């Protein structure tokens, strides 16, 4: 496999493949009359270009998996819009349009054990994908295509007839990618594809992902909680916290000059076995409240830089150099408004 693309390089085309604008998803907790609303994702915007790996980094409860499901159209957004190749998704109502979308945007799952139906061989998913999305192929051709796709993820075609329990976690994740590739997608939504794999196996899968971008021209939204692996494969990094986008930009920029306090906290918490740097933070890693959170920055309780404004004005992403940062202090937006917005005070 070739070396992954050097980070920070511009994508081949600048035509956005997928664009999400002010994406919001809420879940009502409790019964029909409950007032408790879980804000899984709020006002989240992103752009993915062709031939690009974008890492979506966040911890549990950050909303990153919800984003994947929104983009895969498993959930519908509460607000906001998703456009694929400039066509808004909500216009794609017909079964055919939806189906066509599914042939271009596919998903890979985190858990190599539950991602496969134990009753079927591992070829099942690939063959179904081919049968559904590439109906022009004959049965013979489908079989050949399945073999080709397996090879492109580094698996021998002889494994097509294995059952999931006969394969290791790393092999199964590759099958997951093979399934996604069978439809010849433009974008793969990879939801923590290596988190449940042994460390020694991850490198192979990460290298394979980079190869898919370079050789097959596929874009990947790489969802992870591990900044280090994001650095390794991704061209751009988006950091999420409590349903909000807090920082995004080219990988090296984000990692060398993190502006948002949460990004800085994440970076300091990542341990590198080759380094003996011990940074101490008193942060205990308590997850944020995203039930009826109200206005204001959701990181403020844990933030060493928090000011008065952070409690009642929600920071929006603003550009700093090549990055976008959602932090009043980092962007120098510390002045309070002279006229309070309605409901902000008292």
């Amino acid at each position: 496999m070739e070396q992954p693309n050097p980070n920070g390089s511009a994508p081949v085309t600048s035509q956005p493949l997928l664009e999400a604008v002010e994406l919001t998803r809420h879940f009502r907790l409790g019964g029909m009359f409950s007032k408790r609303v879980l804000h899984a994702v709020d006002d989240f915007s992103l752009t993915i270009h062709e031939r690009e790996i974008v890492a979506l980094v966040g911890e549990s409860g950050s909303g990153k998996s919800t984003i994947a499901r929104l983009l895969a159209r498993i959930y519908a957004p509460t607000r906001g819009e998703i456009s694929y190749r400039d066509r808004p998704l909500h216009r794609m109502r017909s079964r055919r349009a939806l189906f066509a979308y599914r042939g271009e945007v596919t998903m890979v799952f985190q858990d190599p054990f539950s991602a496969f139906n134990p009753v079927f061989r591992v070829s099942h998913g690939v063959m179904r994908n081919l049968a559904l999305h590439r109906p022009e192929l004959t049965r013979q051709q489908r079989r050949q295509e399945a073999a080709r796709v397996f090879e492109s993820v580094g698996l021998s075609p002889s494994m097509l007839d294995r059952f999931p329990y006969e394969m290791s976690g790393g092999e199964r994740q590759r099958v997951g990618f093979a399934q996604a590739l069978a439809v010849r997608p433009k974008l793969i939504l990879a939801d923590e594809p290596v988190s449940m794999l042994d460390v020694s196996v991850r490198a192979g899968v990460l290298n394979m992902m980079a190869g898919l971008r370079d050789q097959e021209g596929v874009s990947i939204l790489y969802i992870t909680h591990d900044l280090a692996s994001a650095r390794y494969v991704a061209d751009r990094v988006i950091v999420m916290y409590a349903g909000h986008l807090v920082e995004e930009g080219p990988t090296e920029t984000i990692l060398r000059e993190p502006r948002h306090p949460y990004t800085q906290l994440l970076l300091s918490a990542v341990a590198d076995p080759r380094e003996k740097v011990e940074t101490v933070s008193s942060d205990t890693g308590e997850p944020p409240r995203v039930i009826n959170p109200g206005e204001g920055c959701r990181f403020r309780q844990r933030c060493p830089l928090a000011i008065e404004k952070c409690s009642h004005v929600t920071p929006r992403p603003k550009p700093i150099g090549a990055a976008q940062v959602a932090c009043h202090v980092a962007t120098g937006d510390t002045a309070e408004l002279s006229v309070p917005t309605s409901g902000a005070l008292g």
Partner: protein
Amino acid sequence: MATGVSALGVASADGAGQVDAARGRRFIRAVLGNRKATAGALILLVIVFMAAFPGLVAPDSPQASLYPPNLGASSKHLLGTTQIGQDVFSQLIWSTRLTLLVTVIVSAIATCISMIIGVTAAYIGGVTDRLLTVVTDVFLIIPVLPLLILLAAYLPPGVTSLVIVLTITSWAFQARQLRSQGLSIRNRDFLVAARVRGERAIYIILVEIVPTMTSLLAASFLALAVFEVGFAASLQFLGLGNSSELMWGTMLYNAQQAAALESGNALWVLAPGAAVALMGAGFALVNYAFDEIGNPALRPVRRRRGGRAAA
């Protein structure tokens, strides 16, 4: 938690196509390894044999009134004769077929209905789920006996009506359980993957979900069969069957009508009763094997010879 290959259970052979055979072998091994299941399987085998070849076991005609009435047990009439001179043993054996068929058919249909309704409710969710759950609950609550008496007035007495009535009143039991099982797997990644592929809901339910539930379905079927044997017999005993059909339940009915116990012909009553109990026990015992397959923790513990079992 990082996962990889478990050192214990993975077949490193290039296993293509071995799994179905392996599953069958595993089942047989589970049945043979478990004494209760073996006993149950034997009982059922005998019953099936008697149902298939009754003539081999009881060459006498079951319904012809050829013999002196109310005879006790003897070498010629192993279980004596009825009030109108029929050979009880013969009747018993020849009734096996219909009894078994009714039990199996009712259990199978009821299990299918409960599976479709339960899984659909679980998978589709929302309003459909609520609707189907209400329907299930209604059928659960229906008081069976009054319903039967009502139906008995309209339906012709006999096996067909019996099957209809039994099916209607039995499917709801397992539907809840199958719905629960469906709920527990509806968010499994492979089902989400099927949705993301663009599969239709019907496909997902029938092809992706149901096959994963085969052992649960088999266990449901067996549990239902235990119940149906007794239930069918009870209904017939209450007069809701056709007394001229050859079933253990109708034998009980006829015996009761003839006041068999009072006239000292206990065998006529005891024999079909015991047969019903035996068939039920057979199904119940085999069900143990399924528990074991499903839950390895129930498997018998192998001890190393001469070694100390772990604390």
